[in-house]
């Protein structure tokens, strides 16, 4: 590799890395400021240009002037986890069926069913909020975790099906057949032979579920009152007409921390070489 090319390559990588990191750095800086550190214009160097304080961080952990983020964090975690597991389970089953069997109900065939799943992602979520409100009210599930789980499953199931159909299509059918020759029923073949080979696909599907579940704002916002608050709500609750930017930044950083760990986890699979087969 020529030296010129190497320089060019690392320059590009560094520029993009800087662009990626910039907003986080600004949030970190801002989270240690207070009104005086913000009002005067942009400042970068703590102690030199502004006096750092812990006010923003204190405010999100039970300070009187902020919004508590710990309970919302737990709510978000439970909702995301449960909804992801349900979506993955149902999605993997459905995807396996769609991958291995041919369905024909009137004029509806496999591709139409797959399209039905995927099309659920086309509708902007705001539209469905009002009917969901009435649905959950009827089921007495407004402002509860189960209510949000149901709604989140509707968001995540299509993603799980989409990822898994493609993945199962890539697993040779001989594997099923061999398992069946060993005396497994179709369901047994799925559990014993297919699932163990599906960890990479499930990983990608789980990542998408986690990202979209954790980051949902509009549904959680509309379908809860006071009992259940999720993390994005807790952050938006600080987006006031006089925004306390320091508290907002601290809450934002805290809220994105678990998913940043997710990025590390996904990258591990990528580097091990087990993910690549998922997308073909």
């Amino acid at each position, binding site marked *: 590799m020529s030296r010129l090319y190497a320089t060019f390559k690392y320059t590009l990588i560094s520029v993009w890395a800087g662009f990626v990191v910039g907003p986080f750095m600004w949030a970190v800086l801002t989270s240690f400021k207070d009104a005086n550190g913000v009002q005067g214009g942009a400042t970068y160097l703590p102690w030199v240009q502004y006096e750092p304080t812990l006010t923003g961080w204190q405010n999100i952990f039970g300070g009187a002037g902020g919004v508590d983020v710990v309970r919302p964090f737990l709510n978000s975690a439970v909702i995301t986890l449960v909804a992801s597991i349900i979506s993955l389970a149902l999605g993997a089953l459905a995807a396996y069926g769609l991958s291995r069997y041919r369905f024909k109900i009137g004029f509806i065939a496999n591709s139409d069913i797959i399209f039905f799943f995927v099309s659920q992602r086309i509708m*902007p979520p705001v*539209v469905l909020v009002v009917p969901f409100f009435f649905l959950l009210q009827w089921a007495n599930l407004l402002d509860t975790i189960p209510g949000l789980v149901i709604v989140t499953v509707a968001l995540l199931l299509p993603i799980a099906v989409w990822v898994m159909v493609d993945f199962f299509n890539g697993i040779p059918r001989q594997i099923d057949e061999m398992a069946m020759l060993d005396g497994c029923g179709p369901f047994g073949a799925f559990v014993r032979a297919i699932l163990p080979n599906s960890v990479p696909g499930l990983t990608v599907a789980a990542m998408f579920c986690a990202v979209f579940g954790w980051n949902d704002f509009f549904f959680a916002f509309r379908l809860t009152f006071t009992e259940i608050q999720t993390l994005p709500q807790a*952050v938006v609750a600080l*987006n006031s007409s006089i925004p306390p930017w320091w508290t907002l930044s601290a809450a934002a950083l805290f809220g*994105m921390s678990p998913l940043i760990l997710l*990025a590390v986890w996904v*990258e591990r699979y990528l580097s091990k070489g087990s993910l690549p087969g998922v997308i073909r």
Partner: protein
Amino acid sequence: MDGLRRHKSMFLLPGLLTLLLIIVFPLLFTIRVSFSGWNVSNPEMDFVGGANYVKVLQDSRFWAANLRLVLLAGGTVLIQYLIGFGLALLVWRNVRARRLWRVLFLVPMMTTPVVMAAVWQMIFHESLGPVNDMLAKLGIAPVHWFTEAGPALAALMTVEIWQWTPFMFLLMLAGLLSLPKEPFLAAAIDGAGAWRTFWKVTFPLMAPVSVSAIIIRLIEASKLSDTVYVLTSGGPGSATESPGYYLYLRGLKEQQTGYAGSLSLTYLVLMVITLTIVAALLARAFKVPRQSSKAKEQ
């Protein structure tokens, strides 16, 4: 045959029925409400015929938002694809600190759009944010990020590109890592240079991944609303309104549920048609053999 049917239903039906159960009422409700005058002052399911749909046809703000989506979704997805593919190529092989870069490049897609948009709002703040401050240090006049249409669109697209290029990066990198070795060996034996290898080998092999990655991003990008909501609120004027945000304004903020219902169904039909056409065009442009459903008869 009966046993087989039983099994295949057992696989498909739990998921399909769950989704149907959850989605059927909201969908029917939306269709029905779109023919009613339901609004904040009279939340009633009366019947006003197609009046809402006539209004949709005349709603220039809605159609302007749809046109704008060509830039906001189409433009950003194209840029995301180019950058994402480029980054994937850069950290594919022979790079130091490879895993660090890969994690770093993935991180933005993990962040919550409404939350990140709030952070970006501070960054682009015209008098207190770092962007204008650094421009000033370079002797450039402050840019009116949120008060002029052009810069506001640029700011919005920047945030979208920041947030979602990682998605492209992930799919393209996974695609690159799964490429077979043989074609590259063959090209090397032929003495093809890096540039020629890319166009003759890498790019064609990556075409199917590219098409599905672009389509998925287009579907997701078209719903753009969280970021608009926090970053620009659709302003200045209505210069950065996306259809998703406009639906939010009419349906949730102004609570014109009936009218928003007809807007959203119109939007849904429009998107399904557009995406189908775009998918076909993309497949042709990338010379991808039509992906047939791989389910075989048993």
